[in-house]
């Protein structure tokens, strides 16, 4: 039964191309998740310490208290990463996958 054994072996072990594709897919999902997770962390912080968001109660606040609101900065980093870095990175992951074929 050598032929049967070989076919079982081929089914049990995915081809290197499939493995690479699977790895790239996981990488793309992780990269896509970084932005939303950062935004989520900022939103969570905003709910935990709403007094850090001085734009909600701006009266009597100085310039720096209004300009630097840490939960908003965290959200901003997540938004910028998700909008400008992650999409290009996922495209380049797909392009690398095409090159590997």
């Amino acid at each position: 039964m050598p032929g049967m054994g070989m076919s079982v072996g081929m089914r049990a072990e995915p081809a290197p191309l499939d493995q690479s594709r699977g790895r790239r897919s996981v990488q793309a999902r992780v990269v896509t998740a970084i932005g939303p997770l950062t935004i989520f962390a900022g939103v969570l912080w905003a709910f935990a310490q709403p007094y850090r968001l001085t734009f909600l109660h701006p009266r009597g606040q100085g310039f720096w208290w209004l300009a630097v609101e840490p939960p908003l900065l965290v959200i901003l980093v997540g938004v910028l990463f998700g909008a400008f870095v992650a999409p290009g990175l996922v495209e380049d992951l797909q392009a690398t996958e095409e090159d590997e074929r």
Partner: protein
Amino acid sequence: MQPEAEFVHWLFATGFLVLGVCLLAESVVGPDVWGRSIWRAYLWPGAMFVMGVCMWPVMILFTNSTIHMVAHSAWAQVLMLSGGAELALARGKLRSPYWHLTVGLALVVSGAASLVHEQNDWLFSRAAFVHHAMGWVMIAGAIFPIARTFRPRSFALGAGFAATLLVISVLLYSHRDVAEIFGHISPIAGTPHR
């Protein structure tokens, strides 16, 4: 118009957050995919260089003591050195991979500066705790960029480096000029605020 120290810490925390998310993404996809776009290759080294430049006004304006000025200027120099070296490596102006060691050097010097310029004990106040913790995290975390120089494609080393930067970011965001730490605050620290 000069900001209180806590605002400066929060702005630098944002800088470390930018570095952390970029390096996390780079470690996930690998340096080859990350470097396919040239602006992306410049992103975190550029951010590091800008953070170094921004440390100079901190050195000039926050002159609490001589040791503060020396620590801040050392910090500015190593951030600019490592950011500049990484930019030159991305551009191809520098070729030796050993220039990546400047990032490890930056973390060790920054950690030492953080520890040296904090004159109070760990539980004196939140600010003291943050500087002690950040100093030791930087010194211990320097192992990741140093080892990554020799194994640039290692996910564990890249993720470890990114995690180090994210922990530094969290510590800096938790900084307050006068606040309790685990229920402790020295009576001579001042009136705490949240």
